[in-house]
């Protein structure tokens, strides 16, 4: 875990030192990588800055919980706020309706209150060494009300204002009505083609969000090879353009080998998992169990990182935060196939840790 800590902190130094990126919504990382925000500041930090441009992010859904939607919503909202072109595909027959559920950024007043929370917390619990870096960073990001932030905090209860949708390139595709993957593919290529090409200077980045790709109501859901070559094609297209594609799929509904192939194709692989309600065992084993809504596993990232599990919490019932899973030092049966790790500290903000 030490590796991660250092990485996170060195990353913060970069940010404060580097000249602010000319384009809002893009962040320059080491080795020429460019990140776009996932819309969840904790996830950005864990991933070392966000989703790298040109990468394919795959989220394995939990069939029982809609946590993947949380990730998608924040991702899409963040893009719209940054005025980045968006392509959204989902198996529902009216995908545009989903846009109405996108969360709105917290107003600066709320933002400050969160800052103050963190501030307070710092005053109360100074045992956490790296906390102060996060505090600093937040201040850096929060500065300048007129400027767009790289990553906003979102209020999940408040829908995104209408004006964000206007005058932007938003493409919605229903996978249900689209009988063939070819047309879908053509839509994707068309969407990517309209993005300005990368020529040393990036002006904008596109976001592709594909929800529940292999869900059974899609006609192509039994054509595994077709879907694989679609994803392979999508990946190589995204590679050569300045866009990020996030794709979620229900891994319990597809064959194990297909799921593995898809996981291999991912540049960043996440999975979400529901946690059982009112599980006394878990409540005893995990600190902060009461506030958790689910678990987020990070299986694969472009940077070196130990695979870890994070808990997803709704702070004040509206904004999503991630926290390192803090386990009692007992071999807990909660982690089935996932690599859980109880030792990771210092990765997320505003932890309600019991010291």
């Amino acid at each position, binding site marked *: *875990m*030490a*590796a991660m800590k250092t990485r996170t902190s060195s990353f913060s130094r970069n940010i404060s030192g580097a000249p602010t990126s000319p384009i809002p919504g893009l962040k320059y990382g080491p*080795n*020429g990588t460019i990140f776009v925000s996932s819309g969840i500041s904790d996830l950005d930090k864990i991933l070392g800055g966000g989703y790298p441009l040109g990468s394919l992010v795959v989220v394995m859904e939990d069939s029982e919980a809609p946590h993947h939607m949380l990730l998608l919503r924040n991702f899409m909202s963040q893009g719209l706020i940054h005025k980045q072109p968006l392509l959204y595909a989902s198996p529902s027959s009216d995908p545009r309706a989903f846009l109405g559920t996108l969360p709105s950024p917290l107003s600066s007043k709320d933002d400050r209150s969160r800052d103050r929370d963190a501030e307070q917390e710092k005053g109360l619990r100074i045992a956490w060494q790296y906390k102060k870096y996060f505090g600093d960073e937040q201040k850096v990001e929060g500065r300048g009300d007129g400027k767009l932030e790289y990553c906003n905090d979102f209020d999940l209860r408040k829908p995104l204002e209408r004006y964000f949708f206007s005058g932007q390139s938003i493409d919605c595709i229903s996978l249900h009505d689209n009988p063939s993957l*070819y047309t879908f*593919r053509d839509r994707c290529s068309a969407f990517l083609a309209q993005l300005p090409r990368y020529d040393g200077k990036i002006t904008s980045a596109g976001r592709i969000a594909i929800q529940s790709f292999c869900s059974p109501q899609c006609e192509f859901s039994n054509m*595994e*090879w077709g879907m*694989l*070559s679609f994803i*392979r*094609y999508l990946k*190589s297209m995204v*590679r*050569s353009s300045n866009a990020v594609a996030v794709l979620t799929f229900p891994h319990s509904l597809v*064959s*194990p*080998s297909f799921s*593995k*192939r898809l*996981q*291999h*194709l991912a540049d960043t*692989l996440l999975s979400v998992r529901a946690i059982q309600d009112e599980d006394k065992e878990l409540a005893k084993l995990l600190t902060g169990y009461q506030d958790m809504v689910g678990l987020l596993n990070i*299986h*694969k990232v472009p940077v*070196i990182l*130990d*695979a870890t599990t994070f808990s997803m919490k709704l702070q004040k019932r509206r904004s999503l935060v991630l926290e390192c899973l803090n386990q009692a030092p007992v071999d807990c049966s909660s982690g089935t196939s996932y*690599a859980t*790790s109880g*030792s990771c500290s210092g990765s997320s903000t505003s932890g309600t840790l019991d010291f």
Partner: protein
Amino acid sequence: MDRSSSLLDEALDLDGLTTPSPSQPARVVLVEDCVETSGAFILHHLMKRFLSPHSSNAVVFVAFAHPFSHYERILRKMGCNLVVQRDNNRFLFFDMLMLECPGLDGGVGQSIESGLFALYGKIQKAVEVSSLAESKRNITVMIDDLSLMEVAANGSSNHVMDFLHYCHTLTTQFGCSLVTLCHEDIYSSTERATIPLQVEYLADVIIKAEPLASGLATDVHGQLTVLNKGFYDGLGSSRSKMRNFHYRIKENIVEYFYPGSRT
């Protein structure tokens, strides 16, 4: 650091791979990995070794997984400039990211076979050209990776095997080495999966990257098991040998060490 990185080289008998010798037939190397522990770093390691400035070896790289810039960035970090090597005709890169057989355009029916046949033609031509350029040069054909090639061939493992068979004929014809990457966990739920089984038969060296049986640890990223079927011990006899060790991936380098040999 030198000592630890030589653990993989020693297990692979890399000197035998990089320097062609009449007594040593060409070799087929198979890298098997899974989602948790990617084996790509082994390919990068081999690439770097093959392209070392002390030799004139050439690499023919068939990429299904990543574009040139990806490998270029990684190898640059490791101290090997692929652009220069490409200009020197020591590194031949085939970008097959968009290869699809049968072609999706729906138009002129490009069958699976003809697509792979065309690719093979390119490879053989490249091998021929670079073997003519300098005699006694060892050429390595690398394929990254077989599982994606299977996707490109629309799931026809038979055609992939045909293709591999032809690549294999290059090893006897030109003394090439063949290095392939295969994601083993994809096939773990399939019985008698053609590709991993048949390639394991063909391979002289099998490198398996797996997570530790005990789960992931902070300072160990996984374990490598190297089975070298025709290890040449230098005294003129060959026998198979097997090695197992742990590795840890760092920013620019991978550390190899025997289990328990680090605190």
